């Protein structure tokens, strides 16, 4: 293997590199090219397609391309948010991989001037029976909690899923939401020839070298030897860095600022200079280091955590230094902005690298990879074996994907900051904006089963479900971020799914006015050639203008009527019921009519805002009956459900038809409700009423609250607490 191959630079890319430079690169330069041209940093397989996403809207202040996306919430306030994957490191070393994933996404948000106010995550693992699942689940959950809890940001919502396709590649997607003052947002564009480039934060060590390259490759049985490429997190250092940065941001000293994430010092310096169309000079002798004798190569490629790079106003350098000294955080002037348009790196008086920046950014390789549409649709659905309705309900509630994830979220501090109005266990999370009447609702969603069956429908559904969850909390949906987790893009059928996913997200976000403002792509999620199911995770935020609408909203009142918004369920292909009963699912996911979605959702939001309904929950995985069970368990109530036509019972209870909600209404408001729905043209059905306890369907099926709770809550503890 030659030095290029060992840096994951293929033959064509090697030719391109030599052609650009017109000379042989130094070892450090090869390192710089290898990380900047990695899939993780260059988006070389996805860049072309990502441009097709819908990214505009009057609520959008900053779309994709910065550290995070920014949306307007009025009163000179903005929400800054992004989601990012940390899949590869979390598989090799779950605790540190997940912890540093949380740390990285938090820095993306506070580097723009926002104080983080909430964390979310979407995590996926292999089957329960797989030998690594227990170890990975406990490590990832402890890592997410360990980092977020210590920095002091509530982790308020998320999803945990299981599927055999993640046996060899688990997914960790972390999202951070921050609050900023609209006219005090910081960007990464460097400017001002001669201005100082300043390094702040933790010292540089040898950890994480080549992390970005590792995250751009597939795994095999030897993957664990990559453990040294996983970074080690220090949430205490992050907390100090956060407070120091936010304090400096009040002092009009910063021209540009960028977190050192993947590819560390290399990508942060290159990206800042590239955005400003300037050059940058770094003297590595000034870099704070954890150990002696780090080489230029190691310093440029280290992914040590909790570090930032800034360009400062020269006259404010001393003020800045004082702030960091006060917080006990390292501060070092490590270079300056130049007019050369090159990155020049010197160490011990020797120029270790001198590369025109455009070769590392705009002119980096870009592939429009081959794609083949393997039409998987319209295959016959497997018949669902006859199963007693009661058994089916309990079986679904006791299945890995639908069961309670309390074991997971009880390890996350959800109440710190004292603004959490709604958290795990409901549709998503809500945090209040301090000193205002406003609140932000957020949710993370995707159904990999649908995405695997039909990439485009699955992607539309993920956006729609996120939208629906935010509506169910009484918020107006604003914008989304995403993490596109896929297998090897060099496989044409995976590339095809990727492109269809982009189209699905685009179509849904246009119709729902739910633009994409930030995101990340994680490819090569494969082990020994087996890819994960496509998993385009969507994270959304919405605005509640007045938290007064949430007073007395949520808890179920005995005697209230239960209605379903949308049409009666019947679609069982690709459903949870099918998967749980047959052990696998077929390939016809429910169609989604985006205009209907918008109509139904807008109607429901009005019902909440006008305080006509008393609770709301979206219908998704598992169909209407799972939604109702989740609602009654939350408040320890019961429900009496009436299905008129017994022969259609299974479809109505378990069908996963889209664009639907369960709502409850006090009987005296039913006529206002019906009038309103008719006026809007929204379909609805009376389903039953809330009772004091037990679930009753047509008097013939009775399930006690204990049976429901036991099925719903016992699965994960029984597996995780079993030390065998």
């Amino acid at each position, binding site marked *: 293997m030659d030095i290029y191959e060992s840096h994951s630079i293929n033959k064509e890319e090697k030719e391109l590199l030599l052609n650009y430079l017109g000379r042989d690169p130094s070892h450090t330069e090869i390192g710089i090219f290898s990380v900047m041209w990695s899939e993780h940093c260059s988006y070389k397989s996805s860049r072309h397609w990502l441009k097709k996403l819908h990214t505009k809207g009057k609520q959008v202040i900053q779309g994709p391309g910065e550290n995070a996306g920014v949306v307007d919430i009025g009163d000179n306030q903005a929400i800054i948010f992004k989601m990012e994957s940390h899949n590869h490191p979390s598989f090799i070393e779950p605790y540190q991989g997940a912890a540093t994933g949380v740390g990285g996404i938090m820095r993306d948000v506070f580097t723009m001037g926002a104080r983080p106010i909430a964390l979310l995550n979407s995590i996926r693992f292999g089957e329960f029976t797989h030998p690594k699942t227990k170890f990975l689940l406990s490590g990832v959950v402890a890592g997410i909690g*360990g980092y977020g*809890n210590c920095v002091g940001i509530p982790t308020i919502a998320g999803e945990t899923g299981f599927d055999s396709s993640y046996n060899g590649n688990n997914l960790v997607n972390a999202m951070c939401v921050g609050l900023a003052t609209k006219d005090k947002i910081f960007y990464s564009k460097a400017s001002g020839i001669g201005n100082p480039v300043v390094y702040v934060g933790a010292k540089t060590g040898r950890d994480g070298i080549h992390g970005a390259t590792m995250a751009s490759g597939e795994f095999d049985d030897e993957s664990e030897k990559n453990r040294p490429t996983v970074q080690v997190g220090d949430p205490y250092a992050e907390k100090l860095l956060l407070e120091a940065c936010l304090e400096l941001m009040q002092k009009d000293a910063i021209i540009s600022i960028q977190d050192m994430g993947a590819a560390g010092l290399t990508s942060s310096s290159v990206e800042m200079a590239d955005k400003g169309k300037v050059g940058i000079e770094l003297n590595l002798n000034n870099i704070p280091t954890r150990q002696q004798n780090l080489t230029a190569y190691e310093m440029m490629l280290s992914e040590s955590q909790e570090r930032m790079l800034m360009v400062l106003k020269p006259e404010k350098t001393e003020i800045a230094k004082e702030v960091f000294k006060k917080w006990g955080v390292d501060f070092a002037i490590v270079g300056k902005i130049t007019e050369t348009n090159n990155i020049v790196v010197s160490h011990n008086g020797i120029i270790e690298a001198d590369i025109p920046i455009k070769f590392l950014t705009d002119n980096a390789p870009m592939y429009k990879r081959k794609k083949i549409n393997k039409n998987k649709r319209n295959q016959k659905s497997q018949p669902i074996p006859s199963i007693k309705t009661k058994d089916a309900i309990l079986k679904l509630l006791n299945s890995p994907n639908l069961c309670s994830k309390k074991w997971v979220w009880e390890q996350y501090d*959800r109440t*710190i900051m004292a*603004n*959490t109005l709604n958290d795990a266990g409901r549709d998503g999370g809500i945090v209040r904006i*301090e000193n205002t009447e406003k609140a932000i609702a957020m949710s993370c969603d995707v159904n990999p089963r649908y995405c695997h069956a039909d990439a485009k429908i699955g992607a539309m559904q993920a956006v729609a479900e996120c939208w629906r969850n935010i509506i169910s909390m009484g918020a107006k949906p604003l914008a989304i971020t995403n993490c596109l987790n896929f297998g090897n893009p060099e496989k044409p059928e995976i590339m095809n799914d990727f492109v269809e996913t982009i189209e699905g997200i685009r179509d849904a976000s246009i119709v729902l006015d739910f633009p994409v403002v930030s995101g990340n792509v994680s490819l090569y999620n494969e082990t020994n050639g087996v890819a994960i199911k496509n998993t385009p995770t969507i994270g959304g935020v919405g605005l509640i203008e007045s*938290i007064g609408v949430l007073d007395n909203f949520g808890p179920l009142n005995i005697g209230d009527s239960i209605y379903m918004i949308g049409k009666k369920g019947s679609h069982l292909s690709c459903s949870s019921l099918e998967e749980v009963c047959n052990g696998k699912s077929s390939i016809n996911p429910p169609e989604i009519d985006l205009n209907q979605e918008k109509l139904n959702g807008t109607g429901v939001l009005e019902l909440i805002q006008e305080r006509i309904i008393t609770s709301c929950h979206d219908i998704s995985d598992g169909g209407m009956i799972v939604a109702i069970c989740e609602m009654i368990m939350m408040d320890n109530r019961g429900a009496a459900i009436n299905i008129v036509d017994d022969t259609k019972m299974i479809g109505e209870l378990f069908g996963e038809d889209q664009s639907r909600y369960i709502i409850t209404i006090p009987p005296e408001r039913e006529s206002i409700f019906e009038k309103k729905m008719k006026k809007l043209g929204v379909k609805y059905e009376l389903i039953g009423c809330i009772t004091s306890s037990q679930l009753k369907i047509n008097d013939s099926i009775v399930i006690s609250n204990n049976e429901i709770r036991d099925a719903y809550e016992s699965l994960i503890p029984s597996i995780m607490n079993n030390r065998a």
Partner: protein
Amino acid sequence: MNVTIIRFPGTNCDLDTANAVKKVLGIEPKIISCKENKIPKSDLIIIPGGFSYGDYLRSGAIAAREPIMDDLELKGNQGVYIIGICNGFQILTERKLLPGSLLKNSSLKFISKNVELKITRNDTYFTSKYQTNEIVNIPIAHHDGNFFADQDTLDSIEANNQVAFRYLNPVNGSLNNIAGLYNKNLNILGLMPHPERAVDIRTGTKDGSRVFESALNFYST
């Protein structure tokens, strides 16, 4: 009434605690850094929750040895009222201003949830607004909240009626379900639950407000 909140590096409940004091008492508390030499004249000093010095070594161990703690100890001995919440409780036990210590939860996991607590007595500075034996609902969020003391110490805590709050149901392995306790003079309180996160019904519970109201009540009378 002068309220002072001490912030260590890694403290993360300082702002929440200050907001709760403002909201409940209408008093602007003073937040000071642990690097100050002296604590200003205060009627109530609060050590809020967090991960002081990353909780490296042991929870609260490094913070307990900061020079400012000499002044805190002095003031505590003089009868100034002090509350340590969560990490603050750990710091107070590390400093031996309160007996016992806080071990890792018996589940070895972080636990974040609302718990039911029983008020042991209402004749103290911190609990006069509660009823004795009243059950209240306040969130916990900690990894090291498992109260432990040797048998003699535990016996003396009970004999002196120093327990302030008990978990109604076992939650983290604490001996005698102790969630919070006083020093012998009843002017220092340490507790694992977070009363500052329970001051507004919109966030789920308002049962923590009365810890602060009790203090003000005492001050006013």
